[in-house]
């Protein structure tokens, strides 16, 4: 995702990421976010200077693993509750606008 120069994002890259997040940015915003995000990446770049060869990668900030629950059914929401906030419903389903294209 990053450009050729580490820590430097191009306007095109910002535009691509914005599109993936379904954000519509103006030309000014593209310029501004490219600058700001580059600064963020620049900060992170400082970490590259550290020798972490002796450290195992951290998967999670909490030192926990294997948090599991038993396979027991628990009451969820009623259909009325589940659909309560939906802008539109039909046949017990959420109504969504016309979908363009198949599921990923």
């Amino acid at each position, binding site marked *: 995702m990053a450009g050729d120069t580490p820590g430097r994002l191009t306007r095109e890259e910002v535009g691509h990421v914005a599109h993936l997040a379904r954000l519509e940015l103006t030309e000014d915003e593209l310029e501004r976010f490219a600058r700001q995000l580059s600064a963020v990446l620049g900060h992170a770049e400082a970490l590259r200077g550290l020798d972490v060869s002796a450290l195992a990668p951290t998967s*999670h900030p909490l030192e926990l*693993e294997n948090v599991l629950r038993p*396979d027991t*059914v628990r009451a969820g929401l009623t259909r009325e509750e589940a659909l309560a906030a939906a802008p539109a419903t039909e046949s017990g389903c*959420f109504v969504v606008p016309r*979908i363009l294209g198949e599921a990923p």
Partner: protein
Amino acid sequence: MTTVERPGVVEGTTGRFETVIGLEVHCELSSATKLFCGCPNAFGAEPNTNVCPVCLGLPGSLPVLNERAVELAMRIGAALGCEIRPSVFHRKNYFYPDMPKDYQVSQYDEPINVDGSLELPDGTRVGIVRAHIEEDTGKTTHVGATGRIHGADYSLVDYNRAGVPLVEIVSAPDLRTSDQARAYVAELRALLVATGASDGRMEEGSMRVDANVSVRPVGSEAFGTRCEIKNLNSLRSLGRAIEHEAVRQVAVVEAGGRVVQETRHFDEESGRTSSMRSKEEAEDYRYFQEPDLVPLRPSASWVGEVRAGLPMLPAERRRRLLTLVDGEPEAGGAGTASQVATVVDLGLDELVVAAVAAGAPVRVALARSANEAAQRPDQARLVDPAAFAALCRLEAGGTVSATQAKQVLAELLEHGGDPAEIARGLGFEALGDEALSSVVDEVVAANPGEWERFVAGEEKVAQFLLGQVMRATKGRANGKVVAAALEARRGGAA
């Protein structure tokens, strides 16, 4: 004209091309609840009745991993001979209303199961790259004139399936024909059912297959560019889609074009595949680690328990039957492998093994299981192996003919009972020794000349006398027994 010469090899205008196939199989796990919440994992419920804040992606809700789902995923890994590893979960980000969170929780670069293999009935060993855990998506129904995506006015979403635990099993590109691809899916399905990890029902969508297909000139080592084909709802569709796609790709290559790596949709009606997404919207899911879930590191003892608790798998069960076949000189020959595959597929191998242990000849037990019992596998799995063995012995010993044995078996499956009595009831039982002796008396008395020659040692007359006895008994006598009776009488006369 480009034609499929035989499955897998496409005869183009410039040469012959080989098809290279890798499959991605999604199977829903048979846990009681969803992957990250306590909602029921059930097919066919009223829409949006098995939902909660977690699987609806409501703000503030947090996922907790289902222990049983992990165990079932490990069973699949163990059954496929995978290494079972520590793993983490990632978010696969995309915008589509089948996932209310706008991401699917999946495993990315650190999956739970890696590096296994699956052995097909023909002995082919197919590599398994990985088998990882992820959550299923909701179901969308397109409403409008066509009932399909194109031309729909709007869509309805049911989130009952959202969050149902899945394992995605990714094969290596080791398959070369549509027949092999079908055999792989059938074998995988049998394995999933045998381990209890999934019900493997393709028709209910609990097992779904995507096919990665590419072509290359026969003899070439380099892989061609692959396309991923979706919407394969049956083994038949899988085979048709692969064959169509191979021919399409060869035509592209031979016309001087390049195959574009893309996802294609198989249309059942036309039997064709078509492009699903434009190149501009290439997949970019921005995977990142799911911060709401901690790493999964199954203990060595848990993994050990799962491996030790596996049932006998289809490949091993086939080998067990083949070992029995090898131990009997009369067994084996053409069709045995297919009989063995059928018997294991229908879960009748226990019956055969138990019947052989009770004295049934392997050849007969296998034939009656693969042909007749296979018509009613549910009843056959419940039949008393000792009774089945007794029937096999009646047939092998000639007391009843093969045709009669099939009728006795039908009765045995339907009502149970003693095969000898059933045979008597149907009037099938061979003559007793006394009755046979009196028939032989009659035949000897009616053919004194032939009898003299037989006693004098003219062996070719034996067949004639045997035929006379068989005719007089209307085929109820056992040829071997008659021959022995004639021999004994000659011994007494000489």
